[in-house]
């Protein structure tokens, strides 16, 4: 009993730290060397999605040792992503608890919610040295769901949505939304999508295609554009869902459940926000080796993902150094490798030194991956986050009827 109380007391005492380190805004104004010095020998906790062993291996076994070696930073990646992360930060602020994470992996509506609630520190991201290497001409990288990064998040990677099919089961897959619709009608029970981020991204892509193109939805959130796009989409869906898996009455909760259905032959299509998912998951044995990625000719959504620093980060200096390292050509190249993660680089290739340019261009392109120019031709940007949030809520209420 005494021991228990002792442990309690110790935890409470250690909770209140004495000196507060300066925040990222202040640090961003200092010369970079002093930030690195401040970060040396410190611990950085990075809250990110930990559901993919390949990404975990990249972060734990490649990034972390190099950070330790070059900057003396001990990186520890822990779980925390999306709505759960926003929730955790809101509760931490409410309770006045000390911060748990220094760096967070975010994008899209998570960024939107964090900004709305003022849960991120900044601006800082435009002041780190590696920010010069970022592809500032790319609308995909520089706008997060049409939001200005404003220095509150630093780019990390970019991906493009694609469907996944099995060449053995579906040698002639549909290539457009219309063909997909016909395929679903002719093959009842063999298609579905998940309830989470990937599934809603798929629906958004459909909404663009059926609604006359992404341009109808650009330029901020427009209630009327949304409602009209949504109604067209839901009309299309209602005609098709009786031919979905389980007659559209049940949906897999996440994209991983959809992969499981696809791998087990219960459905013939999966999907992913990452264009290299088919390749990397096939290497992991999660998807069959005959799986390939497919980009619909109506266009698929390309987006980027970022890292940010939460308002109560105990070690913003360390977080900034980590973010800077993540943008280094070396780290971006490693991440892009199909046998590591296959996550696209956010750097402007032409601004890199010649030897790096050559290495990027020579990156082993797995023959099973979608060619770069195909990806670029069919890339469509994300639009305002409200579209995603409203679509998710309305899909749950009107189609799934479980929300």
């Amino acid at each position, binding site marked *: 009993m005494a021991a228990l109380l002792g442990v309690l007391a110790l935890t409470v005492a250690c909770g209140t730290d004495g000196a507060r380190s300066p925040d990222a805004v202040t640090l961003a104004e200092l010369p970079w060397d002093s930030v690195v010095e401040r970060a040396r020998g410190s611990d950085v906790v990075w809250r990110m999605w930990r559901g993919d062993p390949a990404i975990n291996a990249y972060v734990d076994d490649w990034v972390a040792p190099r950070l330790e070696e070059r900057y003396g930073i001990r990186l520890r990646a822990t779980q925390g992503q*999306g*709505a*759960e992360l*926003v*929730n955790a930060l*809101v*509760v931490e602020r*409410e309770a006045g608890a000390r911060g748990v994470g220094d760096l967070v992996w975010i994008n899209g*509506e*998570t960024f939107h*919610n964090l900004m709305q*609630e003022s849960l991120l520190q900044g601006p800082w991201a435009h002041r780190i040295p590696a920010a010069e290497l970022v592809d500032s001409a790319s609308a995909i990288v520089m706008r997060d769901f049409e939001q200005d990064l404003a220095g509150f998040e630093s780019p990390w990677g970019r991906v493009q949505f694609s469907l996944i099919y099995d060449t053995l089961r579906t040698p002639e897959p549909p290539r457009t939304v219309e063909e997909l619709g016909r395929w679903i009608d002719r093959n009842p*029970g*063999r298609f579905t999508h998940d*309830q989470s981020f990937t599934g809603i991204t798929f629906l958004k892509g459909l909404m663009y295609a059926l609604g006359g193109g992404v341009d109808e939805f650009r330029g901020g959130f427009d209630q009327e554009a949304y409602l009209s796009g949504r109604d067209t989409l839901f009309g299309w869906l209602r005609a098709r869902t009786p031919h979905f898996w*389980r007659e559209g*009455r*049940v*949906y*897999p*909760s996440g994209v991983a459940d959809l992969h*499981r*259905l696809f791998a*087990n*032959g*219960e459905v013939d299509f999966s999907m992913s926000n990452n264009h290299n998912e088919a390749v990397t998951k096939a290497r992991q044995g999660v998807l069959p080796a005959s799986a390939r990625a497919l980009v619909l000719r109506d266009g698929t959504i390309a987006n980027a993902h970022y890292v940010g620093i939460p308002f109560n980060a105990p070690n913003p200096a360390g977080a900034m150094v980590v973010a800077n390292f993540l943008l280094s050509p070396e780290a971006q190249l490693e991440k892009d490798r199909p046998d590591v993660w296959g996550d696209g680089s956010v750097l402007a290739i032409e601004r890199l030194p010649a030897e790096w340019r050559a290495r990027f261009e020579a990156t082993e392109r797995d023959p099973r991956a979608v060619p770069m120019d195909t990806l670029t031709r069919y890339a469509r940007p994300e639009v305002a986050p409200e579209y995603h*949030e409203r679509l998710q*809520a309305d899909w749950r209420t009107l189609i*799934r*009827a*479980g*929300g």
Partner: protein
Amino acid sequence: MTRPSEKSFGIAAALVLAAPVVVGTGYATAAALGLAGAGATGQASLDRAVAVLTDPVVWGGTLWILWVAAASTVLSAAIAIAIAVTFRGAGRLDALGRTLAVLPLPVPHLVAAVGGLLVLGQSGLIARVAFHLGFIDGPAAMPALVYDPAGIGLVLALTWKEVPFLTLVAVSVLATRGDALERTARGLGAGRRDVFWRVTWPVLWRGLMPAAVAVFTFVAGSYEAAVILAPSDPLALPVLTWERFVDAGLGQRADAYVLALLGFGIALAAVAVHEWVRARIGLLDGGSA
């Protein structure tokens, strides 16, 4: 005779044990009224509570989990009674039967659910065996036992997990109360069938009642099994609560507190029933509270 200090220690103990639940319920109430939590308006309002409690999705999810709890409790109780009666002897066969029945006792509910997914899924073990035996030609032909609106897979997985506990209770009840009464009845000349239906069966179901209510309560509040095996519609109450609680839209988060209160309410009702049942059984047995 209870000394006054003993009584106050007892009451203090009761308070210590109940305190976390009271605090949790209190905060959830405050948050449900909009006085606490993210998105708190600072003004007490029943709006969100009313909106949630009149939402058909919420009632669908609540009734669904209550159905699953009832079905799995009844099924596990029936199996437990059958096992207790079939293997009540002192021989090796009986001991083996009882051991096998009790084996899953320490297995966490989560593991039972994962096992259920792998065995009962449309591409699970049973489907694969059926495929190899030629009964079905693909996962789609296998009846849907998980993520299904009836919750059959979830009921089976929970039954698998609850049978050991109820078997233990049933065996204990038979050994302590059943034997003596049965001997008396047989001594008075009752036939085998009569002894079973008039002595054994009543003793068993009465003795099992408190445990069954406990099992029901636990299942109705269980999150981890439902999140793995339950369908998306109707959305079981625990999963719905979690979904609202981690929703990025803060308005939805407030709903989660109302749903948590609903969960507490169900548990409170179950506790009341449990104590009432125990009190009644105690009276019948001559007091063994």
